[in-house]
């Protein structure tokens, strides 16, 4: 048992923090709210130069070959600084499943472009059903001789406005078990028949409605096996849930630090308000939550890194992150009082991301249910006598 970071990990954390503080100050985050693209291509280029997009891709694909756990730490820093960029989407939602399920040809063609920052990718999973269950996948890909023809609407597709390619989760056959008959297709975002419209989310994070109107996708563009796409979604869900949780952890940590500093500076009744137990216990409660979340996220990330079963822990981490992030923002604002309610205070930028974070890859109820399924099938130790 050892919770120390390696030298490389400490370096990732330090360099990411410095880079993001310089490249992405809060006035830039505010400016990007209004930006059409929603990210800064110049910063994106610098991130690629630092090797971030290929952080855990093998060297043969122009990556750096680090571990999943290291990527978790990088995401934590991005969350701390609320970097608006299609990083999580390109790397977590797309490059990881391509690396796992892609043919060697696809990997050779796609991954180096991702590693070099040339291409932006995203995952088109959810639909107007707004469900992360397999039954929520209704969009059809009808097989013809050479192509699949995609027909239907995907909703809350992040950064589809700037993506070069999409991984589209579609139904290729109707089966009794909703998990079967789902296929993941690699779709060129410029294909005729795709219409993308940005949804005005509070997080200003460029989630889109993507309408597919008889979009032809070559049969060669199936990721993994036809009909077995839900395995890929499960693969993505576990990894992306942890990475999203890490991002939320970074954000929650920063909000806590903001509120804590304010409680030390702000004087009322001739005392710093942090000396009042009502305020102090609020902060202490949040602190305990954030420290717990940190260890839980690290444990889940380590399980993935090590190749151990991770379904239970990843859902535990995301359910916890959902609640802790929300509570930290709310308590942080309360500690600030009226100034916490304004646009000037950076805290609002964090709070505005609450719902985007919470429902990315499943809300608390969804993940609790996944945990419950695991518990139901669990064989208690005391019975194994």
């Amino acid at each position, binding site marked *: *048992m*050892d*919770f*120390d*970071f*390696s030298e490389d*990990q400490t370096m990732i954390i330090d360099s990411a923090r410095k880079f993001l503080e310089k490249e992405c100050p809060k006035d830039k985050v505010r400016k990007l709210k209004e930006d059409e693209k929603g990210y800064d291509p110049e910063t994106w280029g610098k991130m690629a130069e630092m090797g971030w997009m290929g952080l855990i891709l093998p060297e043969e694909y122009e990556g750096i070959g680090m571990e999943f*756990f290291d990527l978790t730490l990088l995401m934590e820093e991005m969350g701390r600084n609320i970097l608006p960029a299609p990083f999580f989407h390109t790397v977590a939602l797309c490059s990881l499943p391509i690396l796992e399920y892609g043919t060697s040809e696809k990997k050779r063609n796609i991954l180096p472009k991702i590693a070099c920052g040339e291409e932006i990718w995203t995952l088109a999973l959810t639909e107007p059903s707004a469900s992360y269950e397999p039954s929520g996948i209704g969009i059809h890909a009808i097989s013809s001789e050479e192509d699949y023809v995609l027909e239907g609407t995907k909703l809350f597709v992040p950064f589809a406005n700037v993506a070069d390619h999409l991984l589209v989760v579609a139904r290729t056959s109707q089966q009794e078990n909703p998990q079967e008959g789902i296929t993941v297709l690699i779709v060129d975002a410029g294909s005729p028949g795709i219409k993308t419209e940005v949804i005005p989310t509070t997080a200003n994070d460029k989630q889109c409605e993507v309408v597919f109107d008889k979009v032809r996708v070559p049969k060669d563009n199936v990721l993994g096996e036809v009909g077995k796409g839900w395995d890929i979604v499960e693969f993505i869900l576990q990894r992306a849930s942890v990475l999203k949780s890490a991002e939320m952890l970074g954000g929650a940590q920063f909000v806590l630090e903001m509120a*804590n500093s304010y*409680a*030390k500076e702000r004087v009322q009744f001739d*005392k*710093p308000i*942090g*000396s*009042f*137990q009502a305020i*102090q*216990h609020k*902060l*202490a*409660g949040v*602190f*305990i939550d954030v*420290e*717990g*979340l940190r*260890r*839980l996220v*690290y*444990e889940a990330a*380590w*399980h993935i*890194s090590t190749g151990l079963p991770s379904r239970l*822990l990843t859902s*535990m981490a995301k*359910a*916890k992150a959902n609640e802790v992030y929300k509570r930290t923002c709310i308590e942080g604002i309360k500690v600030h009082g009226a100034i916490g309610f304004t646009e000037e205070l950076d805290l609002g930028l964090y709070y505005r991301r609450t719902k985007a974070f919470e429902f990315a890859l499943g809300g608390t*109820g969804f993940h*609790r*249910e996944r*945990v*419950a399924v695991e*518990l*139901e099938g*669990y064989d*208690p*130790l*005391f*019975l194994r*006598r």
Partner: protein
Amino acid sequence: MDFRFGEKEEKLRQEIRKFAKEELPPGWLSTMLEEESEDEDWEFAMSIAKKLAERGWLTMSWPEEYGGKGASLWEQLVYSEEASYWGIPGVTMGVGGVDWVGPSLMMFGSEEQKKKYLPLIASGEPDGIWCTAYSEPNAGSDFAKIQTRAVREGDEYVINGQKIWTSAAHRAKWCWIAVKTDPDATKPHKGISVFIVDMKSKGITVRPLINYVGHHIFNEVFFDDLRVPAANLVGKENNGWYQLMHALGFERGSIAGRCYGYNKRILDELIEYTRERGLFREREIRHKLADVAIELETQKVLAYETIWKMSKGASPIYEPSRDKVFNDHILERLAMLGTEILGCYSQIDPLSRNCKWTKLNGHMESLFWLFLGYAIAAGTDEVEMNIVGQFGLKLPKSY
């Protein structure tokens, strides 16, 4: 980063599991919440303590020269976790014998004290059982304001005063007591000393305090001109506060793991019960179980973090308080959920655990009625939150 235990710890884990299977009755669920209360439970706990001592586990954290095994913090953690999960009774030698009396004596005790008391504790015999007398009617959270006095007279100290909430005083052979030796000290905590008292001495009266469930766990203890040999002073006169704070570091290693192990067992019992009764069909129950399971996993990794910091040589200040607050929060949720799942059956008096309708040996009821005691004992949640704020967040002292 590595969340795996080493081979040595895994081997110990298996050995303890084997011990639990061989030595505890089938279906045994711990009575750790109230083992001091009933004679029968207490005798069983004592018989197990003896067996733990024979294996060298009872005081495994102690150095070999004092009857221990010099076990690593991680081995201690595994032992605490497993002992609690399986409900192995008798692991503490009363209140504090293993956790702080022994370690304090090793650091501050005289050679004579070490020779006399340490083997007694390590042997697991009833003569090695301690109670700890800190709290007084007027000094609870504000412990430095204790009023029980010890006055030196020749080769003796004369102790007068009253202690309260003294758990296991009715079972203990010895009392580890904090008293005022200098009431005029510049600061209240500078006038405190620690003594060893033989509970059979003249001048001690133990009066039971019965909790609202009907258990006899704690007591009031009165001292009337109790004469204690000066050789029973531990460490230096008026240095007691410092000694006690220092000794706290020893129990920290065991507590969080002990709490996690216990909670995990309760959760496992509830999962099994829920499954047996077909209650997993109910979404509300499923989700509440999931939620508690998430909190438990969090508790586990926080407990491990505390041990990890200690293993790196750090002396954790706020972490044990954090872990205590978190444990109280989990106990409350387990108590609420457990009795909700038991439904009508949770009304059965936990003192009647032999009633044919009692479920899970009455353990959920015990937890429900006792969790508040835990939230108050050894530092109320509110006091612990002050410590987390002051030392974890570096906020100004709030009290």
